[in-house]
């Protein structure tokens, strides 16, 4: 594994200078966060896109044998760098399409570049509503990710059904994603359960080193349930500090962890330290027993592709975004961005989790996430989602 990586790096540096691409290749620029804390998700998202490209090319490509070629660049998690690499790929590598970006700053930053260059841009991960807000929407931008609205409302739906919950609190990071999810959650919850009282809101900063003061302050307010959208390593750090403080016991595990707190990466990193009993979400799970055959097949292929028996939950984001692009190219029967952009409106394609439609009115996919109770299962050395539920989000979309 390690040797492979080293070799990969060596090749990447020494050899793989752009071979004159066969003229008929369809080039897809993939700006993605590949260094720093976001690489945890960005790297596997890229794997998913690579897997789809391999599958499509093995099946003979698209439009009578034209192969897809992925050109990935590190955005370093910074919006201005995302803009720079996106433009470089358009101007220098002459990519036909852009698929990628990660944070809620990167997506909206790259969107005007796509508009200016009239190139279709599909965002696989960026959740901010801003990306496709009416004043920001243009013909070339699409999203196959979930949104903060969907995520917050799904969580509110869950919270409303929890028994004996009267006092609710939030633990979200003090920046756009945390603020937006908290707002979507609370607004929807107030509609569903007007009797619920919001007793506390904590706003740790993005990348807080120690959450203990926030945890203690929140416990003092004695909430019955908590919503959080701490993501990736932030959730792990938070939960590792909260558990021994008796935080999860105090709220009787009525903890709703958005921000992919139920992702297998998180569960693996925590092992038996995971606060089993909480509710959490994830983009993908590898043990969806009641799911469709297409998902089981996808997981089987992913296992082989990533050589990982319990594969990451992130590849599906890159995979589905690329699926959408391929479907658009096929429907348009062209790689002309104007035609593909029109073809993508109201297009429906078969994603591993079932059919997904890119709505014509706001260019968003009805992309749901898995929600479920996290439990320790003796079959696995880490927590898994019991009775995972793929929440179809259409009813949560405006």
């Amino acid at each position, binding site marked *: 594994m390690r040797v492979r990586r080293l070799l990969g790096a060596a090749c990447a540096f020494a050899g793989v200078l752009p071979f004159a691409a066969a003229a008929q290749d369809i080039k897809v620029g993939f700006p993605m966060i590949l260094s720093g804390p976001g690489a945890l998700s960005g790297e596997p998202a890229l794997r998913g896109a690579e897997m789809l490209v391999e599958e499509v090319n093995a099946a003979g490509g698209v439009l009578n044998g034209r192969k897809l070629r992925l050109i990935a660049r590190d955005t370093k998690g910074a919006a201005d760098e995302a803009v720079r690499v996106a433009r470089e790929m358009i101007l220098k590598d002459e990519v036909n399409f852009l698929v990628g970006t990660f944070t809620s700053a990167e997506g909206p930053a790259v969107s005007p570049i796509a508009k200016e260059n009239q190139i279709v841009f599909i965002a696989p991960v960026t959740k901010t509503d801003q990306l496709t807000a009416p004043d920001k929407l243009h013909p070339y931008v699409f999203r196959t990710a979930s949104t903060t609205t969907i995520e917050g409302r799904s969580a509110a739906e869950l919270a409303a059904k929890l028994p004996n919950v009267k006092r609710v609190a939030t633990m979200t990071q003090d920046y756009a994603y945390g603020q937006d999810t908290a707002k979507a959650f609370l607004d929807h919850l107030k509609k569903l359960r007007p009797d619920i009282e919001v007793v506390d809101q904590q706003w740790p*900063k993005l990348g807080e080193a*120690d959450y203990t003061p926030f945890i203690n302050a929140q416990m003092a307010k004695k909430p019955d349930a908590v919503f959080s959208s701490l993501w990736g*390593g932030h959730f792990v750090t938070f939960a590792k500090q909260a558990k*021994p403080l008796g935080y999860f016991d105090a709220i009787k595990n009525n903890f709703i962890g958005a921000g992919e707190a139920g992702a297998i990466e998180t569960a693996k*990193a925590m092992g038996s330290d995971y606060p089993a009993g909480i509710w959490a979400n994830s983009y993908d799970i590898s043990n969806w027993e009641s799911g469709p055959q297409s998902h089981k097949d996808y997981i089987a292929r992913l296992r082989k592709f990533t050589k990982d028996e319990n594969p990451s939950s992130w590849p599906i984001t890159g995979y589905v975004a690329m699926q959408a692009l391929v479907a658009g190219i096929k429907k348009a029967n062209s790689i002309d961005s104007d035609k593909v952009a029109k073809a993508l409106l109201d297009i429906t394609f078969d994603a591993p989790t079932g059919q997904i439609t890119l709505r014509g009115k706001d260019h968003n996919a009805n992309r749901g996430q898995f929600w479920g109770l996290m439990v320790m299962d003796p079959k696995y050395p880490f927590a898994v989602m019991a009775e995972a539920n793929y929440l179809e989000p259409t009813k949560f979309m405006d």
Partner: protein
Amino acid sequence: MEPSFIFGQFVGGLTAAMTLFLIASGLSLIFGVLRVLNFAHGSFYMIGAYLAWQIVQWIGPGGEGFWLAVLGAAVGVAVLGGVIERLLLRHLYRREELYQLLFTYALVLVIADMAKLVWGTQQFGVSRPPSLAGSFQVFDTTVPHYNLFLVLLGPAIALGFWYFLNRTRTGRMIRAAALDREMLGTLGANVDRLYTGMFMLGSFLAGLGGALVTPIKSIIPGMDVAIIVEAFIVVVIGGLGSFWGTFFGAIIYGQVLSFGILIFPRFSSFAVFALMAAVLILRPWGLFGRPISR
């Protein structure tokens, strides 16, 4: 506010302070004695965390082997620091301080990528050792044993270094070296070796800090730059070259954060910077530092 609540926040602030002090202590040492702005200190801290995880995997997770892993990680990082000092950094001492900064910044890039090559981009975790897995109650506040251990370890490190720097011969030489490098050389002390030793000691503390936070933090790419600026700030708040200053700087930061969020819930993003600005405006040489000439 009830007293028990205030106590809870106080303890929370202490825990936050000590996680920061663990990394800031080594930085303070290198900063104070070698006058090197070591941006790579965060990288050493990250390597300490990864090494601790790696050793725990080798000896089997979940047991008291954790302590062995902590020691191994700290020693490993000290060796790494020693090698870097001997081979590269040493040739920059006579150059402008800024070029040392440029060098350590380049190191940050290199070390981060090395870690990515070896350990990938996934995050890891290490469990608390069984001996400190529990917790106890004081004044309605739950204090995990491991947090108590960290809170006690901080002052122990501070005391140990105070003793070492003030009461031992080597320590006095180190302090002399901080004041006048050339003079110490003419007096026959082996300044080169002293500097290598100090850099290794600072790196050891970084590795120790990285290893000791693994039970309470995610081990993840980017944990190096996430912490370094805050650590620098704590060192500066306390006063350059003052080890106790760093210690109290961390404590003050923890308490300001802990009680600040009660008054201004959105205070966290500003806390450390606002504190530093306030301290430097009121006391331009830090809390425990001495004025330096221009």
